[in-house]
């Protein structure tokens, strides 16, 4: 109940902010931060709960973007349809990745997800309809009332997606599905022999994770008014989506949210004040620091601290 009220407040606040007179740049930057909230939350369902490390977030994200572009170009489909299509295609790719987990575990699974990313990029580079390697300029449609700018509207849409993603992750974590996924992470054989249908659960996690990543990618072309393969399928999406939950803490749904808000905001500030290249460095340095000093992330640090002070 507390959670539902909190989630509603976040959505209302996002709406109110978008209708207020705040500086346009805030929404431009906040949209990206929220995208990272969705991506890292989605990544954590498979990577954090079930322990299958996915480096190919960009594949799902980029595929979501391209699904949206194809639908927009062919049918002028509205944004909602684009997002649903992105989620559907992401879910389908997730199902394929889920089947891979039958044979591939650990580092081999991670390598395979990188391979998928490169396959997707190569495919789009060679597809003329969506602009090939040079990409495609897109004309945004008219913005819908009550918003007066498209960026503001996209900000609200992404805030909604973030709340949906986090709610799903939380629902999975606290229930029997989360317990099963954690059992898989700790020992897949023992999980199976404890009655956990491991393949079904892994497929479920892959599909949900993929769908959310695809949905997060769908509004991106409209945000940029442009699409091209190199940035859509960049490995950076995957590195960030992995680093943010690691830094926030992978065991709890709030971990990726904290990680994404923190790291995403730092990246935006660094991009504006220093340079775009440095922000990748920031992610890398922070990730190394946390993996070495606080492997359970900020959530883990917080738990340690509360345990100590309660003694």
């Amino acid at each position, binding site marked *: 109940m507390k959670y539902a009220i909190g989630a509603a407040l976040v959505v209302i606040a996002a709406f109110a902010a978008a209708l207020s007179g705040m500086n346009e740049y805030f929404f431009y930057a906040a949209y990206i931060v929220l995208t990272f909230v969705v991506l890292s939350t989605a990544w954590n369902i498979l990577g954090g709960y079930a322990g299958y490390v996915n480096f190919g977030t960009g594949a799902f994200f980029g595929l979501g973007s391209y699904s949206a572009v194809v639908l927009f170009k062919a049918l002028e489909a509205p944004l909602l349809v684009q997002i649903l299509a992105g989620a559907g295609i992401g879910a389908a790719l997730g199902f394929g990745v889920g089947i891979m987990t039958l044979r591939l575990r650990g580092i081999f699974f991670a390598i395979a997800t990188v391979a998928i990313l490169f396959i997707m990029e190569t495919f789009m580079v060679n597809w003329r309809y969506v602009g090939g390697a040079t990409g495609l300029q897109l004309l945004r449609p008219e913005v819908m009332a009550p918003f007066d700018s498209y960026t503001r509207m996209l900000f609200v849409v992404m805030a909604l997606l973030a709340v949906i993603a986090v709610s799903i992750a939380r629902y999975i974590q606290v229930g029997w599905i989360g317990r099963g996924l954690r059992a898989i992470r700790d020992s897949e054989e023992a*999980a199976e022999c404890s009655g956990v249908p491991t393949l079904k659960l892994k497929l479920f996690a892959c599909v949900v994770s993929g769908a959310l990543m695809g949905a997060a990618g769908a509004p991106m072309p409209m945000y940029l008014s442009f699409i091209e393969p190199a940035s859509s399928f960049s490995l950076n999406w995957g590195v960030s989506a992995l680093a943010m939950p690691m830094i926030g803490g992978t065991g709890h749904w709030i971990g990726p949210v904290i990680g994404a808000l923190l790291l995403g905001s730092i990246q935006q500030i660094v991009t504006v004040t220093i340079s775009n290249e440095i922000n990748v460095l920031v992610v890398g340095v922070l990730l190394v620091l946390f993996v070495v000093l606080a492997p359970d992330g900020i959530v883990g640090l917080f738990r340690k601290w509360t345990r100590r002070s309660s003694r």
Partner: protein
Amino acid sequence: MDAPLLQIKQVSKHFGGFTALSGVSLDIARGERFGLIGPNGSGKTTLINCISGSLRNDAGSIRFENSEISGLAAYQRTRRGIARSFQIPRPFHTMSVLENLLVPSAYVVHLREAEAEAKAMEILSSIGLAGKAGVLASQLSQVELRKLELARAMAARPRLLISDEAMAGLAGAEVDEVLEILFDLNAKGIAIIMIEHIMQAVMRFSQRVVCLDAGRIICEGTPTEIVGNPEVQKAYLGA
């Protein structure tokens, strides 16, 4: 007539060109205490992997409570009533001891949380782990890990429990402790297949023993018959 709990008929398993099991047939009765012995590499673990579903047998049939299970996934067999412990303990190490038991409670017995916790605590007390309920599984000692393996298997409410070397590497008093636990479980009507290298334990525990060698059953009988059998002595006991 009361059919056996588990009926294994002509089960074979190959790994490439290597024959791990060839034509093994075996019946386990309800509530039986059954010992499985044999030298390393004789196929003991392969056989129980085929029973529990971690491996699929290439040929033959495995029937549990009168229905064929050799096509079922491991989790489905656990739900039918076959539970196992692992030779090298495989705890859910990021969970507490209690949470370890809640996994089978949720997935096999479908209990509600409060009920499941009460049941799990009951099992932990009977096995002597109640004091460790809140401790992370990664912080347990060897003997505690062995007990946790058995406790987690019990939480699935099996009618057949496969104990894969639950006593390997334990000291004398600890062996007795685990043996006591297995006797207790058996007294509740659970059939137990015990795989063990500690002959003393197998002999004390089992009503019937089978000795495997090179994927075949070379001898079946009471513990005394087994120990007296010349083939067993040659293959396993080092006489």
